[in-house]
């Protein structure tokens, strides 16, 4: 087993290095740059140290946005993961109806985010929207522009409509990989429906579920476009999630320093929570081994 050593092989990595540098590292560095400097205009910057980070970490406004964000993501995961599994379990396994279901399920995923927002913005309006008018006609005092609970409900239902398909399709793929013999053996062993789910279907879905939870966590934690189009973060700050707040800070108030510090913390929080999810779920898998 003689492996020849040739250090010139490192040159093969160079193109990727350059690409990553220009697409990720250098832009990120400009953010880092802003986060440690202050300016009074005229393109003159001076060193601010960790001032902006301290400001962001102690800011009550950011704390409130973070709280809303965590609540929103928790609700989204609590609805979409079980619902997605439920839908996947009840989809036809083959034939015409399976294909039709797959197409219908994939549709919401193909619609651009701002279009989704616009659809629901109009759908929920009490003057012309179908949903708004039906709810009003049924006697509900529904108005997502003035009532924070209505705004939350609308944004959550919209996200469930938009993204549950993703969880369902991933689970469906996991379920399709289970050989028929497993179901037959379970019937022979007189297993209950719950036992089939618990001991056959769930273990086979574990891998795709990990991916589904991670994707849904990251996406919902960074959600911007849809709630921005529907509620604009309101009423008041009721649906101002982290991204919306960040954009307000960076572009609305042009506070580049704090916004840059905010971005970096935001990024690290997502990285940290994703890592925690991943570690916990892979460890769960190993423990039961």
């Amino acid at each position, binding site marked *: 087993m003689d492996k020849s050593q040739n250090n010139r092989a490192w040159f093969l990595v160079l193109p990727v290095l350059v690409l990553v540098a220009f697409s990720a590292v250098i832009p990120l560095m400009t953010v880092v740059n802003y986060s440690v400097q202050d300016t009074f205009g005229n393109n003159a910057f001076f060193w601010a140290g960790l001032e902006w980070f301290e400001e962001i970490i102690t800011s009550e406004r950011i704390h409130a946005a973070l709280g809303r964000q965590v609540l929103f993501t928790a609700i989204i995961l609590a609805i979409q993961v079980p619902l997605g599994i439920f839908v996947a379990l009840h989809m036809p396994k083959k034939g015409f109806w399976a294909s039709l279901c797959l197409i219908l399920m994939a549709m919401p995923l193909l619609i651009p985010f701002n279009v989704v927002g616009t659809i629901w913005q109009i759908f929920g309006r009490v003057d012309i929207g179908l949903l708004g008018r039906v709810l009003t006609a049924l006697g509900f005092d529904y108005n997502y522009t003035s009532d924070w609970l209505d705004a939350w409900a609308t944004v959550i239902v919209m996200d469930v409509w938009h993204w549950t398909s993703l969880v369902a399709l991933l689970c469906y793929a996991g379920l399709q990989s289970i*050989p028929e013999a*497993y179901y*037959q*053996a379970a*019937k*022979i*062993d007189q297993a209950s429906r719950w036992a089939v789910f618990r*001991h056959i279907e769930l*273990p086979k879905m574990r891998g795709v579920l990990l991916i589904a939870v991670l994707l849904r966590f990251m996406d919902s934690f960074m959600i911007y476009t849809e709630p921005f189009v529907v509620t604009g973060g309101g009423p008041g700050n009721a649906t101002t999630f982290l991204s919306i707040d960040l954009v307000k800070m960076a572009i609305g108030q042009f506070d580049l320093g704090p916004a840059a510090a905010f971005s970096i913390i935001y990024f690290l929080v997502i990285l940290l929570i994703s890592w925690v999810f991943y570690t916990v779920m892979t460890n769960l898998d190993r423990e039961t081994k």
Partner: protein
Amino acid sequence: MAEITLSKLAHSYFAKPRGEADFALKEMDHVWQDGGAYALLGASGCGKTTLLNIISGLVTPSQGRVLFGGRDVTRAPTAERNIAQVFQFPVVYDTMTVRENLAFPLKNRGRDAAYVARRVDQIAKMIGMESALDRRAQGLTADAKQKISLGRGMVREDVNAILFDEPLTVIDPHMKWELRTQLKQLHREFGHTMIYVTHDQTEALTFADKVVVMHEGRVVQTGTPEELFETPEHTFVGYFIGSPGMNLFDAEVQGETARVNGIDVPLGAAYPALRGRVQIGIRPEFVSLAAEGLPVTVTRVEDVGRHRILRAEAFGRPVNLLLPEGEAAATGQTRLRLAPEKINVYADDWRVKPLGQQRGA
């Protein structure tokens, strides 16, 4: 435990079968006696697995009925039939330990913990996995997993029947022999009805009291290994059982004589006038070299250990015979004697009973 009766049973995987060719199982009547050890033997794709799945309720037959001790269970779900089945490839519950896997069918039936523990220990001993009981089933090798599947099949004592669908395919040869012995012992101890599907004749003949041979969706013969050897009811049985299979010659049969390409061959009994394609069949064990008889050309001699097979050609068709120990192998042109009382006569592949045996036999 119960006698299993298949009545006018037929199955097609097509919703609207058009003619017999669409049926995976042709119409059949068959009784599996309570406590019998059966082997279901046949080539791949002959409908063995379909038949098994119908008995266990995994497949609902398109026609006919399945009766367990007189009770019609044709439409009853698998769980209600209380039947055990082991599949060709291992099925284990990955997240459970070996112990939990073995206990699973008993737990589902709500047996008490002490009984479950005792029974699991017995089965673990039987499949030789006592030391691995607390390991997770996921990381085990294919043959260990198959042993677990076998164990799960045997763990319930009150099942109506245990069905084995080529269960030893993935097991290594030594373990195969041992497990087969265990199965036989289990059968003797508990007297479960056992149906063992295989396409390996050695496996079938060593396991079973009765062998059921299937061919193209039909049961062509049910009998003891001796019966299958001595009087194959169908040319397929002659060809499939025995190594090498039965020799067949096209012939004209008149009374006690068969004419094979102009050569008279004496038969052990008289036969009625026959229609269709008439053949005579004889096992290689009952063919010997002689001064008179069928002229053949020897092509080669094979030493297969226990005996030698002489391969020859008669009128362009292969003929085999087993050489007795010590007998010199012939070369070139020679003649063969067919023991008359061992010759069977076939019309359109089905055995014809000689005159005098027609009634009552």
